[in-house]
């Protein structure tokens, strides 16, 4: 369909000096365009049917009021205009969730990226055997499925049988027997953040350490000879070279952590209390727990809108650094 519809002129390369070649090139590129579109068609169709269309459905749903009755009976949900959005945007609880999700994202990404960078730098200074050990440790953590990692942390921090309480309790004068890590939201979020950072560091440290190999050794050595301190070399040589990569991994971390679901879901045993809700879990519980499918959709739409800026920034960055040619 597309191949037929596409006007051939538009696909032609800018005019070349030799007229005959232009013709050949034009004919060739015409055929190429058709083949290329044919090749891309299955992918585009699948994405349209199972991504674009649900996206559209989600938006439609958010203007309706679909509940359990409509689900069971198949009746068309009533149209309610902007009600779901008004409900969300005037609800303190919803804004609390937005603020919490944003705060968690900022804190966890900052810690992860700083630690990741620190570990990457550290790996350059240690003995090769230590470096190998660090790599192996990180690879294991990276390979671990997110849910398994979350379950492991739930077990470590269990108030009755968890080894963390047992160890802390061993410190003289500290009573951590039966300590519940999720009573105080600050402590609970510290556990969740630790889990997310712990699981996220391998990606950051390993990719940044790959990036560091592109910093010319000679440059650093020269700087040292010139009397630059380690900090100065880092600030003025290493970081500028690392900047594009750093931007990309930071943006990705933002996108991932903003969608936090698995970790708080599993650590709170499938029913996170209000203080442990993030946008993803909130939308999910509203829709599938409370049968408020439309309200859940509205929250999803808002979530996507909130992330749009970050995503656009990421894509622009990808084009800019030439990952996309």
């Amino acid at each position: 369909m597309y191949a037929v519809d596409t006007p051939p002129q538009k696909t032609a390369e800018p005019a070349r000096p030799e007229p005959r070649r232009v013709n050949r090139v034009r004919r060739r590129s015409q055929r190429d365009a058709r083949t290329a579109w044919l090749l891309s068609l299955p992918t585009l169709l699948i994405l349209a049917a199972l991504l674009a269309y649900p996206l559209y459905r989600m938006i439609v749903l958010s203007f309706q009021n679909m509940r359990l009755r409509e689900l069971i009976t198949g009746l068309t949900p009533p149209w309610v205009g902007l009600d779901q959005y008004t409900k969300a945007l005037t609800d303190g609880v919803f804004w609390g969730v937005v603020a919490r999700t944003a705060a968690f994202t900022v804190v966890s990404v900052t810690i992860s990226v700083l630690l990741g960078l620190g570990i990457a730098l550290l790996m350059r200074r240690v003995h090769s055997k230590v470096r190998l050990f660090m790599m192996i440790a990180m690879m294991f953590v990276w390979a671990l499925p997110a849910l398994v990692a979350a379950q492991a942390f739930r077990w470590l921090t269990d108030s009755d049988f968890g080894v963390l309480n047992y160890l802390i309790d061993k410190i003289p004068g500290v009573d951590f027997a039966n300590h519940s890590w999720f009573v105080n939201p600050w402590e609970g979020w510290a556990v969740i953040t630790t889990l997310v950072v712990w699981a996220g560091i391998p990606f950051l440290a390993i990719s940044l350490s790959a990036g560091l190999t592109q910093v010319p050794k000679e440059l650093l050595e020269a700087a040292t000879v010139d009397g630059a301190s380690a900090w100065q070399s880092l600030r003025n040589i290493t970081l500028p070279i690392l900047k594009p990569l750093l931007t990309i991994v930071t943006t990705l971390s933002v996108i991932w952590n903003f969608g936090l679901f698995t970790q708080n879901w599993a650590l709170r045993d499938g029913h996170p209390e209000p203080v442990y809700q993030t946008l993803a879990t909130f939308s999910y519980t509203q829709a599938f727990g409370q049968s408020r499918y439309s309200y859940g959709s509205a929250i999803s739409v808002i979530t996507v809108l909130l992330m749009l800026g970050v995503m656009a920034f990421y894509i622009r960055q990808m084009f800019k650094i030439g990952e996309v040619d």
Partner: protein
Amino acid sequence: MKRKIAVAAALAATLFGAAACGGSSDSDEGATSANATVDGKGKTLKVWLMVDAETAWKGVVEDATKRFTEATGAQVNVEYQQWANHLTKLDATLAGTDVPDVVELGNTEFSKYVFNGGFAELNKGDFENSDTWLTGLAGACELDGKTYCVPYYAGARVLIYRTDLFKAAGIADAPKTYADFLSAADKLQTANAKDKKFSAFYMPGQYWYAAMSWVKSKGGEIATKDGDKWVGQLSSPASQQGLQEWVDVTKKYSKADVTKNENEQAGIFAQGSGGMFYGNGWEQGTAEEVRKDPNDPTSELVPTKIKGKLAAAPMPEIPSFLGGSNLGVTQKSANKELAAQWIKAFTDSKSMEGLIKANALPNSTALLDKAAENPAIKNPALAAKSSWFPPNAEKWADVEKASILQTMLTDILTGKKTVADGAKWADEQINATLNEA
């Protein structure tokens, strides 16, 4: 461009249009009879029971099914469901066309589905003991004077305590009054002061069935209906008094995690660092013995540290929450009459006797005395006689799903909110949820 829109429209029509007219919420087709003569030959009923039936009274299921098959010629395919996430699965399935004919749900879960047209109307008089059904179970089955499900079994909560620790602390008997209970707790606390994990009365912070029992003991309520509006009642003086008492007891005698619910309490109590706890009758057994293989309900039982050291008694002056399950025939079932007949066989007196033998409480007050003859469920049977159940509101299940009460309890126990503030907050949430259009 136009073509694209047309394609999208056609796609939309096939996916949604046709189905939108397919379902019917027609509930005026009259009650389904459980006494009709139906030839069920060649038909197979799909029955969803919760996993408890598989682990504890599979024989009763098989016996009822056998009698049913002899009478009708229809086969029965029982699928056992897990409690975790069973509602999500039910939602998804009811939305489709291949639905189970009979579904078991917890008594507090039923109203929502009855109200939303998920279950078919039944003829109450067709079922044995229907005039003496436990109201705590049957309440959820009623809507506008019609009956949509059948009570199945019940469970009630009792005080479970360590006989050896009682003796060591100089407590002669199971507490008979609430004052006795408090003094027993005090004595246990003093006698075991050395164990810093010791809970004289183990009470997890999100155990809302327990907390609400204390509320009920003072004459408080969770919510009451005023005209066609539900009004949260936790802020009422009586409710607050009950909450306060529960909070005091929990803070003073329990080292339990205030963010955990009661699911794991028997296993934690089995570690030996507890004097008393409040649980279902069967939890005494869970605390004394564990399956060698927790994933295999037939594996051998291994005694815990406290094997033979437990006894149960009714919790003095605290009415028990009546938990349990009901059975309903789905509105979309193609074999409604057969399904009703199977339920009839599975809930008749003969089946109920089997349940009693398997240490479950029967669905009728008339059978409770019989249940009390079984020493294992004597105390729960007594407790069931003075029991309560949550508001019979269409959206009650949403209150449970939103963890409103659990959140309130944790907030109060941690001092984040006072009893008054917590109750006020919960009332607001309950009002909003139960009255949502």
